[in-house]
């Protein structure tokens, strides 16, 4: 049994009166590829954002690599309007809401559903900039080029990553000039540049054709093997999910409705209902 890497407990995310993620708990072990699926608007991306620090969760706790990184409970006005469960569970714990950069620094890197590359920059620079987080030089040593060794090291590593994802032939192109599928690959390369332990992919195959999707699935599998990564992804392409996931979590209306290995989830009646949209009174 491999070690637990990410542990999400009772995560609830409420916006105004809407509970987008409701009491979500999940675990990801080292080396796994885990998928989070669910119909549109189920709260998958919201869950991602709450885990990576983009949002402050309303309630719940997230642990990474053995230590608590995010913890919150309903406070202030939310105390009265909170609609979720277990409002008192984390009352006594220290509130932790770090900014996304702190969470990335711990070893968790992500990609975005709507591609967010740095538009004015070349493919190479997009990866190189992501290396900034690991730079030890301060602003003086960097300005006066006293960090030459580190700079060269960064450039070499960035180039290696581009070769790994197969974008070394377009290193000097503007990132936005790449076709869609390659932009998604670049986003993955950029995330890998921060040397993460856990890679979070938000719909990596969105907008890809079946052929590209298969290639991407192989690619994700390959980098997992090569870099000893753990992967947590949101995906709609069931071929890809079923092909490479070790385990699957299914979310519907913010709630976890099923979990298990692909074959279990595939035959789960609640999952089928959620995707086909069975009405309550039918």
């Amino acid at each position: 049994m491999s070690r637990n890497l990410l542990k999400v407990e009772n995560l609830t995310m409420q916006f105004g009166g809407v509970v987008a993620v409701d009491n979500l708990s999940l675990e990801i072990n080292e080396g796994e590829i885990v998928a989070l699926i669910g119909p549109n608007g189920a709260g998958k991306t919201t869950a991602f954002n709450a885990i990576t620090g983009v949002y402050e969760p309303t309630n719940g706790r997230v642990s990474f690599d053995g230590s608590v990184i995010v913890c919150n409970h309903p406070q202030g006005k939310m105390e009265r309007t909170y609609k979720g469960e277990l409002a008192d569970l984390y009352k006594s714990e220290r509130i932790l809401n770090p900014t996304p950069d702190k969470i990335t620094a711990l070893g968790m890197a992500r990609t975005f559903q709507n591609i967010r590359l740095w538009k004015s920059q070349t493919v190479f620079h997009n990866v190189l900039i992501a290396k900034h987080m690991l730079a030890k030089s301060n602003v003086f040593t960097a300005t006066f080029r006293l960090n030459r060794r580190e700079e060269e090291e960064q450039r070499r590593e960035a180039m290696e990553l581009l070769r790994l994802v197969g974008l070394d032939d377009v290193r000097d192109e503007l990132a936005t000039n790449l076709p869609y599928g390659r932009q998604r690959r670049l986003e993955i390369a950029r995330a890998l540049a921060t040397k993460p332990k856990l890679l979070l992919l938000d719909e990596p195959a969105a907008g890809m054709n079946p052929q590209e999707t298969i290639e991407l699935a192989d690619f994700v599998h390959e980098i997992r093997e090569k870099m000893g990564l753990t992967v947590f992804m949101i995906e709609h392409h069931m071929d890809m999910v079923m092909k490479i996931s070790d385990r699957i979590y299914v979310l519907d209306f913010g709630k976890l409705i099923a979990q298990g290995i692909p074959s279990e989830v595939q035959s789960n009646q609640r999952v089928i209902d959620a995707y086909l949209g069975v009405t309550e009174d039918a």
Partner: protein
Amino acid sequence: MKKKETVFVMGVLLAVLIGAIILDALLPSYHIAIKVVKKAVVYSLVAVSMNLLNGFTGLFSLGQAGFMLLGAYSYAVLCIPVAKRAGVYQQYNGGIVQFSLPEIFSGLLGDKIGTVFGMLVALLIGGILAAVFAYLIGLPVLRLKSDYLAIATLGFAEILRAFFQWRTLGPVTNGSNLLKNYPDFSGATGYIILGGALIAVIVLLVNSTYGRAFIAIRDDEIAAEAMGINLAHHKRLAFVISSFFAGVGGGMLAMYMGAVQALSFKSSMTYEILLIVVIGGIGSITGSILTSFLYIASVEWLLRGLDSGKFLGINAPAVFKNGFRMAIVSVIIMVVVLFFRKGIMGDKELPDLLRRRAKKGGSAQ
């Protein structure tokens, strides 16, 4: 290829330096051409510092005049010769600052070197003071975005200007009276060397890993943060560094003007610099420099005739009256903005454009 470019850039810099030396040798220091070069160098420095913030980091700040004011006053207060202080601070019994850095250092290092060294130290202190203020202002203000940040920084600059005219501070700032009689570099060469060196530092910064992080914040803040770039820290860093150079630029402006008064650091000065940055191209350092020279040369010199009755040999005192020059400048600016939507240079630098030309010609590999 890379080496060739470095040689080219070095060559251009050397040519500019030699040009300045020749200009100084041929013309008297009060000649308009020398004055234009001096002022344009100062404006280049401040415009590039503003570009670092507005163009490269994407923070829309309008506090530049405030930071220049800090630098200008630091320089003036620290450099007025002791013997002349009684005359300058007439209403305040000679003021309370009773030393002059150029005099102290000329006592230590010899007359000529000491004076210049003292002047440089005074400029540096002005820059540091501006940077410290930027740090403090930045703590609350940098949480704001776009227009709101602009309004907050503009407000800060205006408050600072009023504060410096306050009578209670008179023994240091001379209230709303002029500070004058401090030393200046005699020719344009000193300005070119100092301004060039400072701009070179900004260029190095922009091309370092920190400069790349600034650009990432400008392009997409959310992605930058997700890639581990601490937004608060990096924004503050850009703000402090930009203000440091604005402070030094303010000190140099005080040097150029010969007499300094808080009243001249109005928001219209910030707008003038913003104009240069926008017309030069937001995110282009060479654009800012080129535009500074073009703008200052035309406003201060080439279009002077439009105000004084005679322009390009046409004698028409009825039309070429006071104020006509600025009307023409406004029209020119409108035309430039209409034809160059992203400024003269866009976000490209001069070497980039030359490289593209070479590629089109088919000579580059």
